[in-house]
């Protein structure tokens, strides 16, 4: 095995495990803050880990209607695709000068895999609640994909039309995208899309506990459910990172304030997720699609037009 492949595997393992631990911590923060908002004490710091470990020890139940292999394999594929994304993103953050496995398009498609596996797993369970959830999950994917990409086009255009994540990060060394009118607009759109991609309230309609009994996950239990929980926690850790890379210039390794500033940005994005989920009621799927296609797509398009005007006229703040 070549040295390069060895490094790739090591990065993959380190990023996967690291992101999982970070995801557990973030999940705890999210739950604790939610509890405090709701005037409760909230769980202890080890609660998410305890949940996962407990599920790992449980037996796996499979409904008689399920298509077994697909049903059990889906969460594992979702988890490993998320881990590959983690490897790409962390590596870009730490060493933006060197390309790694892929670029933004690869990341966008890899981030689609967990949603895809959720739908396949849910379909394979043969449960009608899961089927309804699966249909909604796909519609949600269709809803946020276009505005998210449009929002990403702002940093892509500002870095000279490249899809290379590393170059998008290094192009922002002097002034991050978010310090511009188009950048702010794009970040707002991207944050809403992130909320939808995470399946958090108000976009948790694929699960909707009190309506379709956790929808896509209704038949999952034991280790398979633990895999889903871990994949989602990892996404909770990864999407703020992606947004920082795209809009806020990553980690300024040269400066002393680089790491604290990065942590500040990271906490800000995670706090936004928690804040939005605690202050909004769930939207119906048609409301969600209208919001994304008829409000966020035009908004993101305006951002792209503004940024392109800014580039052609030489106005950096536009």
């Amino acid at each position: 095995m070549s040295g390069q492949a060895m490094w790739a595997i090591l990065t993959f393992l380190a990023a996967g495990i690291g992101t999982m631990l970070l995801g557990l911590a973030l999940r705890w923060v999210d739950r604790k803050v939610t509890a405090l908002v709701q005037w409760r004490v909230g769980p202890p710091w080890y609660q998410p880990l305890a949940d996962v470990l407990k599920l790992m020890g449980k037996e796996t139940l499979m409904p008689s209607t399920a298509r077994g292999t697909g049903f059990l394999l889906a969460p594992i594929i979702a988890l490993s695709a998320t881990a590959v994304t983690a490897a790409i993103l962390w590596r870009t953050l730490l060493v933006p000068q060197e390309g790694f496995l892929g670029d933004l398009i690869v990341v966008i498609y890899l981030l689609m895999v967990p949603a895809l596996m959720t739908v396949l797993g849910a379909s394979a369970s043969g449960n009608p609640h899961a089927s309804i959830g699966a249909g909604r999950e796909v519609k949600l994917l269709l809803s946020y994909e276009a505005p998210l990409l449009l929002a990403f086009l702002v940093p892509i255009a500002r870095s000279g039309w490249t899809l290379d994540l590393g170059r998008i990060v290094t192009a922002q060394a002097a002034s991050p995208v978010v310090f511009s009118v188009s950048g702010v607009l794009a970040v707002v759109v991207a944050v809403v899309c992130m909320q939808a991609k995470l399946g958090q309230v108000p976009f948790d309609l694929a699960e909707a506990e009190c309506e379709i009994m956790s929808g896509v996950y209704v038949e999952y239990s034991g280790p398979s459910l633990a895999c889903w929980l871990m994949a989602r926690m990892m996404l909770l850790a990864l999407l703020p990172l992606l947004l920082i890379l795209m809009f806020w210039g990553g980690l300024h390794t040269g400066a002393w304030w680089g790491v604290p500033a990065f942590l500040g940005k990271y906490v800000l994005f995670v706090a936004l997720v928690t804040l939005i989920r605690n202050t909004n009621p769930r939207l119906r799927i048609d409301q969600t699609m209208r919001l994304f296609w008829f409000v966020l797509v035009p908004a993101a398009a305006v951002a792209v037009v503004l940024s392109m005007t800014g580039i052609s006229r030489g106005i950096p703040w536009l």
Partner: protein
Amino acid sequence: MNGFLEAMRDPLMAPIVWALAAGAAAYLAARLSTAAGKVLAVAASLMVLGGAANILRRPEALASSIPWADLGGGFLLTIDLACTPLGMLVLIASAGFSLLITLYSFRAMAGEYWEGKFYAYVIWSLAGTAIVALAGNLLVLLVGWELVTLMLFLMINQGSGDAPAGAAKAYGILGFADACLLLAVALLVAQPGGSANLSLTRGAVPVEDLGAAGYVVYSLILVAALAKAGAVPLHTWIPKAAENAPPSVTAYLPGALDKLLGVYLLVVVTFRMFQPDGTMGVVLLVVGCLTLLGAGLMAVMQENLNRALAFDAVSQVGYMAIGIGAGTWLLAAGGTQAAALAGVAVAGALFHMLNHAIYKCSLFLMSGVAGKACGTSNLSAMGGLGRIMPVTFLCGLVAALAASGVPPLNGFASKWLVFQGALSLKNPGAPIVLVVAVFASALSLALFLKILYAVFLSPRPAGVSVPRSGKGSFLLTAPMVIQAAACVLLGVRPQWALELFNPAIVQAGAQAVAADGGGIRTGDLGLWNPGVATGLILIGIVLGLGFAWIMSVKRKVRVVRPFLSGEVPAAGDDRFRLPATDFYKTLGKLPLIGTLLAQGETGAMDPYYWSGKHGRTFVELLRSLHTGLVSLYVAWCLLGMMVMLAYLLLSARI
């Protein structure tokens, strides 16, 4: 006889002559024995493959020209043949598809009343494709082109139900396209230079050099190519034909060969015959975006499996149009870097053409097997095949994920190149094209999730008997397995295919990526490195499985009743089954999009429907004039004579 023997010795002529002769033999033998047709179809595919190998074996670039007749006025009829890398790719791929379809049809077409003739048509379609792929001038290409159209009509016409209407529609639209091509030939011959203008090998001529006629000719050939490939708005024959045609036919012609031919002609006219200006590139980009979005949205709303696949087949042509359009625009912009980036875009379009033919052919074959098992192609009445046909399910899954562009399958590799091409436009069009292209990919994913759910994963509807895959199912599944393997292989090693069609394009692309950003970063050819990423995903899955196994080493998976909030469905109770056709009903209720979809479904955007409607009004008008009364005809005669008299008097200036 001597001429025939002479032709057989010419390596370029040989595959064509063999295929035509094999087709004729199969047609003659059709009434006597179907086995002869089968043997001849396999033999013809192998002979064409052998002929292609024979051409590739020779180091020199082959070309042959056989004078036929001098029609006067500078119009020399010659049979020009030439060998180009792309033509050879089309030839080899179509022979491969023909072989797979023949194997599949051994079982799928067994017992059909026209089984013998079917194999003759398959061979002749291959012969037509071979003529197009090896053509050295536009007239020879037109002959092959027309032959394939005719075979398509004959084959669709044999389907069940409303098939003749589908065949008529296909022939109507493709006949119009062929007429455009013929008109282009006539216009080209009328230009200074005569029949030499038809040559496909003399090098690209700037469109402006021919003046307005140049633009007209280019547009006519463009219409022919896009109608064959099936781009909006000339796509409507594909869904109609797919509805009732036998699956072998849909998979072979609209699924694979017509796409190869359409895109091949598009590339030939855009890069080999002419040097179009940037405007033509923009036209192609607009057509590509409309095709991707329009057909993609229509596809997710379909309730019939074949129609849904057909609309997706239309939608994917958009990527090829975008790749070639971006290439045209970049080439017209000038500069070495732009030329190299154009190479990336065009390579993406061509790679996507090949990939699409592979997975769409496989999906149409899957639809044939599934449709036969369930006795219907209506998605809401299908289901439960995942358990009964695991191999078909797996192949369908791979092909569907490849079509949706999920890494690391082949669809992703070619879309990646098209995205790069679109982005390198670096003009206000780039963001629109990129967003449309990525969004259309999500639409494809949505469609295939619906199909996978409906056909394989959802519970079987009540009242449908247990389908069984019986004797000979190996022949049905083997082509799908081969195609699924090709999807994986070309996804993990895209360089193999890219090097096959044009090493120069790949090198140019690599140089472009190098010039663009200090070294090739994501792979040895400017591609992302699918090998490592696939390896990592596989390692992840193995680790996950190992972990799951350790956790459940003492306990087996326990099978329980599905959770239905305490309800226990009785046998045959369909209340707990959600049909896949309900998945995207929300889309139809959205403002604007819902209206557009409803309009699309009623044929408001179908030129065939409109020309039929208005043509009918005209015919009715003429018909109303023919009442059979003598006095009326006498009145018409008198009126005509008066008009003639008036004309003569006026022209004589009396």
